[in-house]
């Protein structure tokens, strides 16, 4: 090894503490590249899930068909069909320890189904008398029954059948998490579900056929649908298909858009993390190289050429970067696995085993030395250009006072006199000594504070959504017409039955419908003059009794409708409804956010009439005596039973469950941002610690001098604390602007990509909270460097080079 290489190596080993600190900082920066691996790992897990699900290309719902094995084989041999899997679905209600709940049971061949295979996550596959809970039930519907628990299923015959939950599993086709349904799903052997559906008259059989095709193009799908329809018609004597066949485009899968929204957020956070990593690397290498300025000058006096000197420095940087890359890559693998497995479980219900994104690992290992060397170049260039004499004559007082800013600050008296203690004065001015490094620290704090501010504001928006939607609905549960045979709208008789239910203190009939305006669908609610909905009008008025007889029906617009249409109070618009084009007059504009503000409110009698069912409503809202969940569950169950007995089979929705679902859906977005953002904040703080620690090391001799002058430990701590707090406060100030910009950007992104509209909520208290947090965190993270500073022995410090 020649002397140049030896110097490169010993430059690392000479100051072990500094080297270890720099290497650790680099490793943290490289580890943050693990963020990039998170979407890669999640995509891979989802692709495995999709492949394992053997998702349908064509799905056909039928009337109950008692198909023989021969007929099923024949279906499988139809032109274009690669595989067929029959299933039977049954919508019913169950009761459990969690209370009554509408559910769907899917009877399939489970793991052996060639189409729409059910994957086992926990426990074991269900046998007779057992069911497998969908892994997305808890998150998507709030209805969780653990393995070993039981559900009492209401069979078609009316009796309750107890089934045991054997574990959890998932099929992307049916899972409520992917397709946005709020109905829990359970999987069971076909025979179990067929037995539940069986009545004296109805045959056992299947009501769904899933197909995988050899040609999954649109033409291939159409061909198969035609062939299947023809075959089944020939076999049964009539067309048994009961709904438009479902087709899946190649490469698409249920819940894909939601998954892509999550990935988009992940990539944005990843970019922020990578940017912070670059900051860290640059600041670290700049500091290291700047410290080599005198030795670079000495080597120049010995005849060293720029290429040779640069070679030494870059070799040192590359070695440091390589060491940091190895440690950082290992940390990044762990970080990526933890984050990806968390998101897989909490957000997309995908089974996730340990995995490594090879391309990210390779990139991390290569980027470490490359980035470290590249980050050294600016400081190296400056050091090589600096005159030798000036560098060698440097007595340690340079760096402060050479700039106009330094002198102006001193002359201004801002930080002079008895107003500012000398100790604190030193610390504050120290922040200006290494301007580049201080700027990097300020930028890191600004980014961290900005992220924190944007999270808190986003949290406020999420909370506001709840208060502006569910919070405005003053009822405990609602009933709607049940799907399937026997369902009918609610008459006054039904209302009387419902109102007499124990625990119910009030009822309100509501008509719900949908309308179109300018090709856009909106929700229509028919409400009374004093509804259970707490409307907050920004203009106009609510309905009166007289409005029910108005020639031109009056409407109140939700805020999103008003914004999109641009219509004002007093104006009319023509809506497309079931009754045809209908001219309405706007009498008010609401500010509430039910249905994301896309609601058009009608007087109840008017909407009933326009929907063709005057005097009846398709929904009832119920107020209860108690807001306790158990009391609401009891009242809900009793009401459903009474109405069913009176000939009104119903489905029910509990407000507290809906609130939990909305909260879960919206906070899932917040979870991503918070978790990833906190890691980025940690990287930022690491940068602050690194900068401060380097500052302590650099000023070892100065600490010795202070000790010689009689400085106590706490006075030395105060010097560095003042510097750290100065950087933190300045960083926070910039962070307020950064946070506001990030917050607005996130809102726009959610609105544009995820179709999630959150209200703007940026109260002044958020920056203040962040200020307190930045100060506290700063004072915590600098404890290590401060402890080091106060332990420096003066004699050792004065000999430090």
């Amino acid at each position, binding site marked *: 090894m020649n002397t140049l290489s030896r110097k490169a190596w010993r430059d690392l080993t000479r100051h072990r503490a500094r080297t270890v600190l720099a290497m650790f900082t680099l490793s943290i920066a490289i580890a943050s590249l693990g963020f990039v691996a998170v979407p890669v790992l999640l995509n891979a897990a989802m692709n495995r899930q999709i492949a394992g699900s053997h998702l349908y290309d064509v799905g056909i719902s039928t009337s109950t068909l008692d198909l023989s094995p021969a007929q099923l084989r024949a279906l499988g041999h139809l032109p274009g069909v690669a595989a067929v899997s029959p299933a039977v679905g049954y919508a019913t209600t169950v009761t459990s320890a969690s209370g009554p709940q509408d559910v769907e049971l899917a009877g399939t061949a489970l793991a052996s189904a060639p189409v729409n295979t059910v994957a086992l996550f926990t426990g074991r596959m269900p046998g007779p008398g057992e069911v497998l809970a969908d892994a997305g039930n808890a998150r998507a519907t709030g209805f969780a029954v653990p393995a070993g628990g039981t559900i009492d299923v209401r069979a078609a015959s009316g009796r309750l059948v107890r089934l045991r939950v054997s574990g959890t599993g998932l099929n992307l086709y049916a899972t409520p998490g992917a397709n946005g349904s709020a109905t829990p799903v359970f999987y069971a052997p076909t025979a179990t579900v067929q037995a539940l559906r069986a009545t004296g008259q109805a045959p056992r059989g299947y009501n769904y056929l899933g197909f995988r095709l050899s040609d999954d193009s649109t033409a291939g799908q159409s061909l198969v649908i035609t062939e299947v329809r023809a075959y089944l018609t020939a076999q049964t004597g009539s067309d048994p298909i009961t709904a438009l066949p479902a087709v899946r485009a190649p490469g698409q899968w249920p819940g894909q858009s939601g998954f892509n929204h999550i990935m988009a957020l992940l990539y944005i956070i990843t970019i922020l993390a990578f940017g912070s990593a670059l900051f860290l690397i640059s600041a670290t290498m700049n500091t290291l190289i700047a410290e080599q300025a005198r030795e670079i000058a000495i080597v120049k006096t010995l005849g060293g050429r720029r290429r040779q000197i640069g070679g030494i420095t870059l070799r040192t940087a590359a070695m440091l970067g390589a060491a940091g890359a190895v440690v950082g890559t290992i940390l990044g693998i762990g970080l990526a696995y933890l984050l990806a497995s968390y998101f897989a479980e909490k957000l997309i219900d995908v089974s996730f085993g340990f995995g490594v994104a090879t391309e990210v690992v390779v990139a991390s290992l290569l980027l470490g030395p490359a980035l470290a060397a590249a980050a050294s170049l600016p400081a190296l260039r400056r050091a090589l250009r600096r005159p030798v004499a000036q560098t060698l004559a440097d007595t340690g007082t340079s760096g402060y006072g050479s700039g106009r800013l330094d002198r102006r600050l001193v002359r201004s008296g801002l930080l002079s006199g008895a107003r500012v203690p000398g100790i604190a004065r*030193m610390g504050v001015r120290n922040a200006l000594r290494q301007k580049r490094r201080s700027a990097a620290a300020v930028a890191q704090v600004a980014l961290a504070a900005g992220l924190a501010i944007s999270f808190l504001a986003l949290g406020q928006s999420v909370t506001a959504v709840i208060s502006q939607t569910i919070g405005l609905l003053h009822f405990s549960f609602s009933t709607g017409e049940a799907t399937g045979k026997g369902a009918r709208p609610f008459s006054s008789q039904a209302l009387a039955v419902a109102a007499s239910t124990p625990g119910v203190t009030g009822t309100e009939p509501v008509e719900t419908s949908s309308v179109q305006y300018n090709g856009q669908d909106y929700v229509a609610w028919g409400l009374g003059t004093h509804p259970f909905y707490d409307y907050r009008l920004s203009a106009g008025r609510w309905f009166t009794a007289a409005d029910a007889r108005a020639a031109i029906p009056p409407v109140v617009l939700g805020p999103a409708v008003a914004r999109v249409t641009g219509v004002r109070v007093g104006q009319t618009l023509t809506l497309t409804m079931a009754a045809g084009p209908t001219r309405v007059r706007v009498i008010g504009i609401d500010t509430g956010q039910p249905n994301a503000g896309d609601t058009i409110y009608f007087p109840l009698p008017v909407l009933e009439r326009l929907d063709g069912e005057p005097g009846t409503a398709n929904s009832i809202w119920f107020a209860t005596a108690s807001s306790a969940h158990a009391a609401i569950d009891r009242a809900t169950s009793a009401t459903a039973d009474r109405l069913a007995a009176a000939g009104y089979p119903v489905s029910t929705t509990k407000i507290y469950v809906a609130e939990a679902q909305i909260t879960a859906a919206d906070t899932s977005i917040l979870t991503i941002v918070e978790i990833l953002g906190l890691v980025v904040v940690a990287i930022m703080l690491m940068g602050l610690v690194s900068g401060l620690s380097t500052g302590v090391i650099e000023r070892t001799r100065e600490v010795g001098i202070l000790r010689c002058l009689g400085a106590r430990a706490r006075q030395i701590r105060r010097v560095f604390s003042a510097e750290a707090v100065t950087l933190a406060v300045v960083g926070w100030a910039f962070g307020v602007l950064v946070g506001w910009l990030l917050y607005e950007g996130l809102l726009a992104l959610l609105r544009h990509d995820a179709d999630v509209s959150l209200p703007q909520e940026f109260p002044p208290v958020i920056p203040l909270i962040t200020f307190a947090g930045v100060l506290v965190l700063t004072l915590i993270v600098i404890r290590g460097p401060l402890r080091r500073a106060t332990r420096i022995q003066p004699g050792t410090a004065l000999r430090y080079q």
Partner: protein
Amino acid sequence: MTPQGWARKRAPRPMRTGHPAADDDGMKRPAGSEQAGSAAPAIIELARVEKVYRSAGGRGVGFPALSGVDLTIAAGEMVAITGPSGSGKTTIINLIAGIDRATAGTVTVNGSRLDQMTEEQLAVWRGRTIGIVFQFFQLIPTLTAMENATLPLDLARLGPSRERGAVASRHLAAVGLGDRGGRLPLELSGGEQQRVAIARAMACGPPILLGDEPTGNLDTGLARDMFELLVGLNENGTTVVYVTHDPALAALASRIVSVRDGLIVDDTGRRRAGDTS
């Protein structure tokens, strides 16, 4: 605290030859030169002091800087410590200041046993007892000359805070920098920086002033001017101990202690007083 009286700047003086009569050129002599051997109380005592420097981690063979040094300095003396590089001069200064700790032996300064004090106690004690002037000035670069001179007062919390600036200002004026107090170290010449360092060293009125090559980074003219400042301090009762490798500057002290290979090989001031040979 009263301002120190400084000697006016004089023309360069010839080097002393060592004979009192020949050296009687009218120059003021440091206080204590006629008092060598009198019964002035000892303000600094090193007894059988050893100092071994070890490499980081404490492993391996150590470097013995001092190998059993006995040194007593009376209050008010002006002592020059001389010797070749690596002889242990700076180590003696560091031990007196409590900057380094002796490996063996005792160090008593101004009645305080330094080996029995914690680092924190040493720092506090040093602020009020010792003034140190370094070869390379070692001013705090982010503080002005005035602020550097005030710093020891702030650290020791000596006197009301609103009066500390006035005290520092008097010290700066005493070293001839009364109008340069608002300058940063980078804006001062080497000589001016060293004057600030002296003002800083005397800020708390310490009884002992230590200098580690205090004029080593100055030209001859500035060196002699600086030395006159030290003489003036000594005349006012401050015990001055300084390290120098310049025989000419060493000769200006009332006592010269020569160090070689970690041992005191000569002590001229004391021998002159009691020399009967």
